[in-house]
């Protein structure tokens, strides 16, 4: 069964450092998303991406965040200068043709900012 893969599974970084979280969506999917989940809390929307551009972003997704699809397979989330409060589980998701098809989520990257 096709799946969304994320790397790394766990990233520890120092406050102020840049991190790049990587995702490989399912190959024929066109819609891509990033969500985050702070430990024990709600799953929060960050950004959606379609047709090589951001289609929607949340208030959380400020200038410190950016997304990119550098080639035909990868979808990355960059945090330029990490803060302690960026510590969370970050999930990538992809979908073929919402709402008729559901979004498939990756296993997540646990980001710890120290």
């Amino acid at each position, binding site marked *: 069964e096709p799946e969304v893969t994320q790397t790394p599974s766990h990233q520890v970084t120092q406050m102020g450092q840049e991190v790049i979280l990587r995702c490989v969506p399912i190959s024929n999917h066109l819609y891509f998303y990033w969500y985050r989940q702070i430990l024990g809390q709600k799953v929060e*929307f960050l950004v*959606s991406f379609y047709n090589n551009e951001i289609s*929607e972003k949340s208030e959380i997704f400020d200038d410190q965040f950016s997304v990119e699809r550098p080639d035909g397979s990868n979808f990355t989330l960059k945090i330029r200068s990490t803060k302690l409060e960026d510590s969370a589980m970050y*999930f990538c998701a992809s979908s073929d043709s919402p*709402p008729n098809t*559901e979004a498939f989520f990756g296993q*997540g990257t646990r980001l710890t900012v120290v």
Partner: protein
Amino acid sequence: AQSVAQPEDQVNVAEGNPLTVKCTYSVSGNPYLFWYVQYPNRGLQFLLKYITGDNLVKGSYGFEAEFNKSQTSFHLKKPSALVSDSALYFCALLYNFNKFYFGSGTKLNVKP
């Protein structure tokens, strides 16, 4: 504004008994509703969805959900719970094809 509410932080049920995990929503326009399950240290796994049509939708692992437009609810159900069903369950609303609004999650504990 769009939103999803899961009023119960935790649901406890004995194995073999029926279970219900509650979800209510608010949306302008057609509701596209989903249930996902999260096991410890894992991603979100799709269970089922309501797009249109029959109000009772069936999904993976014997789960089903009933869409009720008048009550703006989409409760998740299973006739006979298994210990292996213990996990965190999220109700989600897809809005504008761009964005899922997730509920706060309900922890299901199924005891032997």
